[in-house]
Every structure is written in C-alpha cells, then in structure tokens.
C-alpha cells in the first residue's frame, strides 16, 4: 500500500524534541512562546493584563482609582456591551458576512419595549421577549436580503440599520423615554444591577463558545465561511446557518439595547447607533476572527472587547480627554491586525520547522 509522506505536524501542546538536561527554563519559555504564537487569544490576554497593570499601578504610581468598585463596574458595563454584540459578529464574520445593524436594533429595542408596555398594555416580560424577537426579525430580514436577494451583507445590513435609525427617531420624536414602571423589577436582572450585564456577557460567551466549538451549528458555521461551495456540496444548509447567525446577532443587539436602557434608567435615542457595532467588530478582529470568514473564537472576542473597554476606562481613570481616545483605538486595531498577519506567518513557519 502506498505510504503518504507526512510533514511534521505542529505538536499538540508541549514542545517536541526538547533535549532533556539543557535548561528547563529555556524550554518552558519556548513552550510559552509557542503557545503565544499558536494561540492568538493568549497574545491578546497578555496585552490586556499589561494594560490593566499600566492603568492600575504604573500610570498613577499605585494611587489609581482603576480598582475601585465604581470603576470596575463601569469597566464591566462597557465591556459587556461590546462582548455581547461581538458574539453575534463573530458568528456572522465566521460565515463570511458582516452585520452593521446590531447597534440600531440596540437603539430601537428598548423603545419597542416601552411602546408595547405603555401604549399597548403588554406585561413587562412578554414585552421584553417581543423586543428580543424583533431583533430576530431584523436578523431574518438581513439574512433574506443577503442570502435570497443576493446583496452583500455590508449593504443589506447598512440599509436595515439606517431604516431602524429613522424608525426609532420617528416613533420617539427624537426624545428620551422613561423605563416603564412595570419593567423595573425584571430590569434588575437585565441591566440595572451593577454586575448584571457582565454576568450576562460571560454566560453568553461561555454558551456560544460551546456552540461554536462543540456543536454541529458551530462546525457548519466555520464550514460555510471556510468554503461555502464546499459546504453546500457536502450538504450543509448554508442558508439556514446564515439566517440563524444573523438572527442571533439581532437578538443580541436587542438584548444589549434593553440592558443599557435599564442600566442608565432611561431610554435614550442617542445611545446605540453605529458605535457598538464598530467596537464589537473591532473586538472580534482583535481577538483573531478573520474578516474573510472561516475562523474566529468567542474567547478572542471576549478578550478583544475587554481590551477596548480597559483602554476606554483607563483613559477615563487617567482623566485624559475622550477626544484622543479614538486615535488610540484606531492604532490598537491596526496593530492588532498587523500582529494577526505576522503571527499567522510565524505559525506557518513554526509548522514547517
């Protein structure tokens, strides 16, 4: 029988061929280096830790307010919003698409909850569920325009986003609304309690990490983005995967919108919009999700979002004006992308050795 010449595979964990006796420390360092190169998340994790150390101790000689409860809550809330939407973006990006609309679902969903409760007498919990369902409907429309009509998702979701923006401002007359009294109770679990949002975020990341790495849905999502034609030929229902992931993203956008309304105790038409989407796509990309589809991780997006949140909160702690912040953000994204490309090359080389 014919033999196949096999290239040396990258060892799964642990560095192979480390000659015993030499310096164990050096070996361990090399292993750590290999892990850093192989695991994109590890790189981002190190950056996040360094940033926390900087903002927490170095920048203010240990007198930082970074570790006070108020600041940590603030940090967790900023991070949670980015994380939750990034979960959806990771799924959609892995499919080879993008969703520009979740920030606008975010905008409209709490108003919808308010209209349903205050104008139509719907009880709080059904109203919240219907608002989340509305997110799914937007996701469905995005998928319909992308999969069935054949628009690039950049355009279809840009369109639905603007429509939602206009819909929100028209229906609320560009004015804030109060949280309906009947929803205040359930609101504690969604956003008004200090740590509620980050708990949601961590739970959702854990759930979707399992979905992405351990279920058929996740496998097929990667297959669709990795080789759409191939996935279709293998019998994977490409349309269903894309519909599902757009709908998940819509629901998550709606969830964050409702959470932030509860957190700030006001339904504000100026919250949401395109920024949550930008942050979450940036978080996904920093965390190693490929813009062209086929790969990405929830943990990476979680860390990417944490990194952006730490930057934002750190600047606040330092008392630096918010104005230059976006320059840092932009720089961080570009550096992350360069690192992404370079690390991918390193990974390729590591494989050949």
């Amino acid at each position, binding site marked *: 029988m014919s033999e196949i010449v096999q290239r040396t595979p990258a060892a799964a964990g642990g560095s192979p061929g480390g000659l015993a006796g030499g310096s164990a420390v050096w070996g361990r360092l090399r292993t750590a280096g290999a892990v850093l190169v192989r695991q994109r998340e590890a790189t981002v994790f190190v950056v996040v830790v360094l940033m926390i150390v900087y903002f927490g101790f170095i920048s203010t000689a240990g007198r930082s307010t970074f570790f006070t409860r108020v600041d940590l809550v603030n940090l967790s809330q900023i991070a949670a919003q980015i994380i939750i939407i990034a979960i959806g973006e990771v799924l959609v990006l892995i499919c080879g698409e993008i969703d520009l609309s979740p920030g606008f679902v975010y905008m409209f969903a709490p108003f919808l909850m308010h209209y349903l409760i205050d104008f139509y007498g719907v009880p709080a919990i059904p109203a919240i569920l219907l608002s989340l369902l509305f997110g799914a409907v937007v996701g469905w429309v995005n998928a319909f325009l992308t999969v069935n009509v054949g628009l690039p998702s950049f355009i279809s979701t840009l369109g639905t986003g603007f429509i939602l923006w206009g819909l929100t401002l028209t229906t609320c007359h560009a004015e804030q609304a109060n949280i309906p009294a009947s929803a205040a109770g359930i609101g504690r679990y969604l956003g008004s309690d200090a740590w509620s949002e980050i708990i949601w975020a961590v739970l959702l990341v854990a759930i979707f990490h399992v979905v992405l790495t351990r*279920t058929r849905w996740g496998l097929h999502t990667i297959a669709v983005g990795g080789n759409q034609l191939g996935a279709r030929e293998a019998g*994977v229902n490409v349309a269903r995967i894309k519909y599902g992931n757009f709908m998940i993203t819509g629901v998550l956008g709606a969830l964050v919108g409702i959470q932030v309304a509860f957190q700030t105790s006001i339904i504000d038409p100026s919250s949401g919009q395109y920024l949550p989407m930008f942050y979450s796509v940036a978080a996904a990309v920093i965390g190693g999700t490929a813009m062209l589809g086929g790969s990405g991780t929830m943990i990476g997006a979680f860390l990417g979002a944490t990194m952006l949140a730490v930057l934002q909160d750190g600047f606040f702690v330092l008392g630096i004006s918010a104005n230059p912040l976006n320059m840092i953000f932009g720089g961080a994204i570009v550096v992350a992308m360069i690192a992404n490309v370079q690390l991918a090359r390193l990974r390729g080389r590591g494989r050949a050795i």
Partner: protein
Amino acid sequence: MTAQVSDAPVTPGAASGDVLRVEHVAKRFGAVTALIDVNLRLARGEVLGLIGDNGAGKSTLLKILCGFQQPDSGRIVLNGEAVTLKSVDHARSLGIDAVYQDLALIDQLSVYHNIFLNRERVRWPLLSNRAMRKLARERLDDMGIGLQSVDLPVAMLSGGQRQAIAVARAVYSEAKILLLDEPLAAMGAKEAALILDLVRDLKRRGDVSVIIIAHNYGQVLEICDRVNLLQHGGITLDKPSKDTSVQELNDIVIAEYRKALEERHRAG
C-alpha cells in the same frame, strides 16, 4: 456501440444488473446546451471512466447524478427504479456520493471533522469528537491512508492526501455509487498512485460502483472496466477498457477538434 445491449429486464434490487442508468438526460444553461441526450449505465461493482474534452459536459452530468442540479428532461434509474434526485442530501441518502474537483473540503477544519461533515456523530447537543476521531482514524487506516494525525487541519495536507480524505469521506458515507470528478488532476505520480490504489481497493470490495471523470486517458484505462466518451452532449463511445487504447481515444477527440477547426475556417 458495443456494450449498449442490456435489454434484459432489470428487476429492482437484483444482485446483478445495472445499479444506475441515465436515460435521455438533457440540460441547458440559458443559451448554452450542455447535455443533449445522454444515455449511460453502470453495473454493480463496476468502475466506469467518463472521458471527454474540456467543456464536453462531464461535470454537468456529474452534478446531475449527485443531485446538485436537476436535468431538464430524461430520467435517472437507480436499481431499476426511476428517481428524481432532489438535492445532494437526497442523492446521498440513496447512496450516490460525489468527490468534486474542488474536493469540498474545509481547510480550517480538521481531517476528522471534514470526513464527518454534515454526518457528524452527535450526543446532543454536543459533537462526539472522540468517537469521530477514532472512527476516522480506523477508516483511514483501513483504506491504507497513512496520516499521522486526524486532528490536522486539511489545509496542511498535500493534494493527494486531500483527495484521499475526500474519497474516504464519500466511502464512509456508505456510498454505493461514487462519482469522482478529475481525481488525478494536478497530482504527482506518487499521489496519483495513492488514489488509483484506493479505487482498486474499492473495486476489490465489489459493492461500490465508481464513475471516474477524467481527461487523462492513460490512467483511466488502467483502472476502469469500461470507458464512455462524452461528446456533443451525448455518449459517442462505450467500450470495455481492454478493447480500446489511449491512441484510439486521442484520435477520436483530436478528430473532433480538427472537424470543429475546419468548420470554423469554413464559417470564418
């Protein structure tokens, strides 16, 4: 037309006889007519070579046979019963599976995930990765495909290995009719030998029938029991491999090319 004489009635599920017959199949794409009237049969355990020049419609025929596209007219008879192949999944459920030219492998996924793509072992809601890894390992060893690890992403494999994985995937799905689209294209001698061995192995088992689409006549004749030539939207030659030669097949195709060239000269 030496072998087109299977007029004996084929009873459904008969041990002998044709597992697949294609009758008067036609397919057009807009103004382009890809297939006009294709008639083809495949016996149980047989390896049939489907040859023809580029653009003759070989891949179109393959896509119809695996349910990816539907013919405009004509019918497909599977084990004596006329069937409409509604989708790839449907064709697969009837035991027809294809290995495409592009292999339909997902670079980012591991070997075993590729082998089990869309037929994953699941202990709901989770994938049974351990079971799939073990089964993939066994199957590859069984087929003589010596991979070091089934955990490697297929992006890291060579062309021959990728082809072998794709074939293993199809065989693993208990395909009774295997359609191989240009399995030897762009393959080194060693890798081609691997694939040919794989097909020989299937032939030895006897329960899998294979259609190999190729334009390298030499390799096709080496492995196939019979060859069919697809030209002008139909089968123009049907001979057992031993009754024909690379020379003959080449002559036919080149004669066609000359004729087309002359016509063009006359027209121009």
